[in-house]
């Protein structure tokens, strides 16, 4: 098939995207597809119209790549593409939608969910800039169960950019300011301690299935933006070591199943299809969902390819399968 691979873009995550795109192109070529790599420039639409790809794969990350912009454009051009629809992307893009999305999924299915998420508050830049929200900073500790340490992060965007662990109210201002560098909305929420995991999911509807959960172990400190791009700064262990979940093996197996179920719930709750990656923390009692990523990183250091490998699938065969559905 003739596949256009979109990559680069001008989001903060351009570097990641170029690396992902390169890997995707190689994998698709290996599977025998004719690949057209495209950056998102002013010529994108004319090029897509003249190249007439049979399907698009977007390896764009961040703004424009995961917020529904590119998906909306492809829907308008009637070019089939791998991954979530524009309207789904608009929801998944903003992490603040998570509690409400889980809540309505629970109500619609009339069942308790395995997935949980940290309690948090989302505030807009203008509330601070024009309405004096900065005078109420001390309220975070009261409003959020458990108080400090708290997590401060941009509501939208990925790659851990602008994410802070804040220990005291005195450090809150700086953390908020930095997070506002990346987005106009910021979430302050419970800081969850536990085992950090990423669950990759393949497929659509009731055929969707999880790949082995990957355990994320930063070799020093936090799982930061830098660590994500650096060799050896973080270890991915796939599948997750049972010992990281519980001392008892049978119990750990049950927890792993619970984690996988929670991830699938999130995938369905948002209505994602083809592929996605759910990031979560097992806090010892529950799977605390952080976000779902509809354009998972595909670089050498990325979680999704690691999960494919752990389940014995080559990235090439997975991507081949995903694009071939649109033949």
């Amino acid at each position, binding site marked *: 098939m003739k596949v256009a691979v979109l990559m680069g873009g*001008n989001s*903060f995550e351009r570097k990641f995207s170029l690396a992902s795109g390169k890997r995707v192109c190689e994998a698709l070529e290996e599977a025998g597809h004719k690949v057209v790599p495209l950056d998102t420039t002013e010529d994108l639409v004319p090029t897509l119209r003249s190249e007439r790809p049979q399907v698009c794969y977007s390896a764009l990350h961040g703004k424009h790549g995961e917020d529904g912009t590119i998906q909306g454009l492809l829907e308008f051009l009637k070019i089939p593409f791998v991954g979530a629809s524009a309207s789904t992307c608009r929801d998944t893009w903003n992490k603040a939608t998570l509690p409400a999305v889980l809540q309505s999924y629970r109500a619609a299915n009339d069942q308790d969910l395995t997935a949980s998420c940290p309690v948090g508050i989302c505030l807009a830049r203008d509330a601070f800039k024009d309405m*004096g929200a*900065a*005078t109420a900073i001390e309220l975070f500790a009261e409003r959020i169960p458990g108080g400090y340490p708290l997590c401060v992060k941009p509501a939208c965007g990925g790659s851990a950019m602008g994410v802070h662990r804040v220990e005291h109210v005195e450090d809150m*201002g700086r953390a*908020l*300011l930095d997070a506002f*560098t990346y987005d106009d909305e910021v979430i302050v929420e419970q800081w969850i301690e536990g085992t950090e995991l990423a669950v990759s999911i393949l497929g659509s509807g009731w055929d969707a299935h999880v790949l082995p959960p990957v355990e994320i172990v930063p070799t020093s400190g936090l799982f930061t933006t830098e660590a994500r791009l650096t060799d050896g700064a973080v270890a991915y262990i796939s599948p997750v070591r049972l010992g990281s979940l519980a001392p008892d093996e049978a119990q750990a197996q049950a927890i792993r199943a619970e984690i996988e179920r929670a991830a699938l719930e999130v995938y369905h709750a948002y209505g994602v299809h083809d592929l996605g990656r759910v990031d979560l923390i097992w806090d010892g009692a529950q799977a605390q969902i952080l976000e779902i990523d509809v354009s998972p990183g595909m670089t050498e250091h990325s979680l999704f390819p690691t999960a494919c490998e752990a389940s014995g699938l080559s990235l090439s065969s997975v991507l081949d399968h995903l694009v071939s559905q649109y033949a």
Partner: protein
Amino acid sequence: MREIGVRCKPDEVLITTGAQEALDLIAKTFINPGDIILTEGPTYLGALQAFSAYEPDVHPIPFDDKGMRMDLLEEELKRIGKGGAKFLYTIPNFQNPGGVTMVLERRKRLIELSHEYDFMIVEDDPYGRLRYDGGHVIPIKALSDDVLYLGTISKIFAPGLRTGWIAAPKSVLSKINLVKQGTDLCGSSFDQVVVEHYFTDTPWEKTLQTFVKTYHSRRDAMLAALDEFFPKEASWTHPEGGFFVWATLPDYVDTSSMLPVALEAGVTYTPGDGFFPDGVSGKNSMRLAFCYESPEHIREAIRRLALVIEDRLELYRAFLEAGAL
């Protein structure tokens, strides 16, 4: 060298692969781990990189619009004592990244201090011939034979030819020469032939005049745009030559975290913290280069950057007023 006021014999000059190699050679020859090196703070990132491989303890000395502050240097020298510093590295003309030029009195004072406290002076002068106004200030080397003077053709001809030189006392050069042999035996003679040809058989001084004219108009465009658009809380240097303006914002603005926003607005700059050995100082400053873009682009870039800064400032002010910082 004679044209700029320095007298030296051929055997007091060593050709290097750019001034960058000279920095590495000097570091390799003289720095032992833990040795104290004095520099301007901020200083040329490439020098910090060249030095850091040999693990010195770099002490940055602030500058003002007259160059390195001799009073602060003297205080620091008193603290570390005679013989405590190995050498002082300075870019006296249109400093990178500061843009400032060390005035003559300070050059003289620096030499006195070097004798009093017994340290070498390394004078790095890539931009000296790119002066747009004000009068030539004679090199420190012209005031004292002991100085190690670094020259390069990178900014007046072609950086790709990797040709520079060290002018220094013979005794110093012989040590550096030994180290250079261990590094690359000698520089590329082909490059040197090209350079020689350029500086003997072409009207290079005329060509340089056109460079100077071009950069001059770009510098003027940047200073005018800064005056027009930058917020009143900001301050910046007024270089008489070279490539750079150093701008300082209120100390609560972090220029590293502001960079992604500026990039989205289509402007880039170099955050200030990279020019300090600790990587923390200078967080509220930035280096603005005017050498590359046209005057129109420079004006537009400064306009957009000012909007980004203004937006940050508003948010910061709100946090400050609320006592949240």
